[in-house]
């Protein structure tokens, strides 16, 4: 089903990913509010964006997902206008966006650390953009009111910013941005500073907000769960490159390479070999699968821990010994050691350590991927090249 991932993903790959599920039939480009083509950006010798190409559809919730230093924030800052790419083009409704200064762009940003103006109260923070547009006072008042209602903070108009909790500051930052009715809202890890419970609540609220506003959200996060929960489309990035573009289901179920598989959820990634269509060999056995042959025989096989069933060892080809078990709330996480590999298994039925069990998985739960730089047996070489920490401290402004 998947061909091996080319070094530079292109629009085509996104179309393939989206089109496959049939969610996006339209490919005339008219519904693409933003298109980025071949964006490159370096800080000194460090390449932070390497040939980034993707588009953003109107009214979608798109998430740039990746570990720190993958280039996701830089991409967002290019969209906001705080950074210029070294090469490549960005269009907004088919017009060149790169020549537009940040203050004229029809996008607004929710900053990671809120960036509220400490010298203004809540009301004036939210009204900031509207006042610059020289709107009549009555309209400003009603829109501020509306925005506060939207973020559920009515009655906080005259509070000072430093009297707010983290969650409240976050809501004000969102209100300050959406009150300007941007066509695209950029959110840079907006929930990063909140505690887990608050984060969960805000995820749902943000998604609802996006739907009720009917505008495009571009969301940056390193939290894969957050991305899966909220997004229409996820762009997985690593080391300045796009690894995969797709819907949350796509990305989870059909990870394109070992990095994506490993980053999105927990997975067993093991080396395999494919000599013919719909059959893959690993752990010393042959398994039926749903993927046709690849160019290379060597492949990576991904099996999600919840897709593995623990069965009686009798008559099963793949057998192992339960080496550990941990209760995780809803399920148990067990490690089952076979001769070649230690499988992680999620199951609601506990099995005592030391028990010999059989492992079973259905053909469609075996995901076969082409070898990549991120394959387990090559993983060392990439971490050598890793240059994760790109400091935004030296921001020129």
């Amino acid at each position, binding site marked *: 089903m998947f061909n091996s991932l080319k070094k530079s993903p292109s629009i085509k790959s996104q179309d393939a990913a989206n089109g496959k599920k049939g969610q996006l039939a339209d490919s005339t480009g008219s519904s693409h509010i933003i298109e980025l083509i071949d964006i490159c950006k370096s800080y000194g010798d460090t390449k932070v964006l390497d040939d980034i190409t993707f588009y953003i559809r109107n009214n979608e919730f798109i998430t740039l997902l990746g570990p720190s230093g993958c280039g996701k924030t830089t991409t967002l800052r290019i969209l906001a*206008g705080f950074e210029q790419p070294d090469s490549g083009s960005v269009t907004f409704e088919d017009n060149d966006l790169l020549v537009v200064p940040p203050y*004229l762009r029809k996008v607004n940003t929710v*900053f*990671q650390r809120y*960036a509220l*103006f400490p010298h203004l109260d809540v009301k004036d923070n939210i009204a900031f*953009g509207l006042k610059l547009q020289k709107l009549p006072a009555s309209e400003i008042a009603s829109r501020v009111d509306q925005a506060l209602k939207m973020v559920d903070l009515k009655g906080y108009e005259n509070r000072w910013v*430093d009297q707010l*909790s983290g969650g409240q500051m976050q809501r004000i930052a969102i209100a*300050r941005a959406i009150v300007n009715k941007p066509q695209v809202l950029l959110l840079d890890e907006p929930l990063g500073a909140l505690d887990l419970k608050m984060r969960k609540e805000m995820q749902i609220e943000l998604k609802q907000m996006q739907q009720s506003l009917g505008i495009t959200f571009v969301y940056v996060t390193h939290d894969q769960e957050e991305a899966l929960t909220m997004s229409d489309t996820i762009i997985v990035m690593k080391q300045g490159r796009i690894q995969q573009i797709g819907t949350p289901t796509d990305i989870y179920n059909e990870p394109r390479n070992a990095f994506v598989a490993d980053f999105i959820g927990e997975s067993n990634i093991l080396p395999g070999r494919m000599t013919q269509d719909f059959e893959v060999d690993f752990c010393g056995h042959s398994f039926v699968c749903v993927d046709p042959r690849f160019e290379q025989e060597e492949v990576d096989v991904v099996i999600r821990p919840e897709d593995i069933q623990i069965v009686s060892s009798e008559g099963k080809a793949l057998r192992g010994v339960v080496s550990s078990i941990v209760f995780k709330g809803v399920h148990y996480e067990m490690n089952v050691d076979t001769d070649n590999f230690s499988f992680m298994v999620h199951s609601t039925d506990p099995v005592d350590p030391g028990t010999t069990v059989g492992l079973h998985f259905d053909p469609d739960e075996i995901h076969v991927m082409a070898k990549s730089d991120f394959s387990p047996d090559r993983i060392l070489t990439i971490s050598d090249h890793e240059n994760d920490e790109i400091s935004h401290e030296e921001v020129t402004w």
Partner: protein
Amino acid sequence: MKKLLKNGYMFLIFAFLYAPVVVLIIFSFNDAKSRAVWGGFTLDWYRKLFQNSDILSALRVTLIIALLSALISTFVAAITCLGLQSMKRRLRGVIMQVTYIPNVSPDLVTGISLMLLFFFIGLKTGFPTLLMAHIAFNIPYAILSISPKFKQLDKNIYEAALDLGCKPHQAIIKVILPEIMPGIVTALILTFTLSIDDFVISYFTAGNQISTLAITIYSMARKSVNPQINALSALMFVTVLILLIIVNIRSGKDSKVKVGTRGGDK
């Protein structure tokens, strides 16, 4: 016993520090020319002081120089800090190092070096040279007052302002300026105070034609006993004292606000 010893020691130290100043102020109200014998209370010396045209003109020079040098050096410092922000760290470090030079080198050397500069370029010493000298020694202090505010500044708020539709200069006025305002006010008061208070550098750069209060006190003190000096010194002491207390309360308040914020969070 031990506590008594400690308190006694501190009392002696403080007596040592403040006795001369207190004596000076008391004797500025002394109705006798002696600096040792109390001859009753009078305000004569203050009255004479305000009729002394030399002193009045020195007062005018002192105030004008202090005001101008405070305004100019604070303005330059604010602009400079803004520029330093977007500079590479290493270059900024070099500039800050050079900025510290007037602070670490002796006043005497700063004074004569500026005097040599004016002499070398053929500038006759007078009001302009005095003003330039005061700006020169004030700028480092102004920068030191303002640059911490820039360090505390959330750099994203400038971008947030642009994002919400501010042009760059609007963003500076609407967002950056209010944030660094406390630093600017501190810089203004501090440089004003330092300018009034300066003697050594003024001495070398004022020339013969004009005189500041400090220079006037110096030349009077060398000549003869004159209780007007006591009166003038007392006035200057009190003025500088008040200004310093304001600076201290201000910087104290700044840090309190922050503490209060943290406290309010819970």
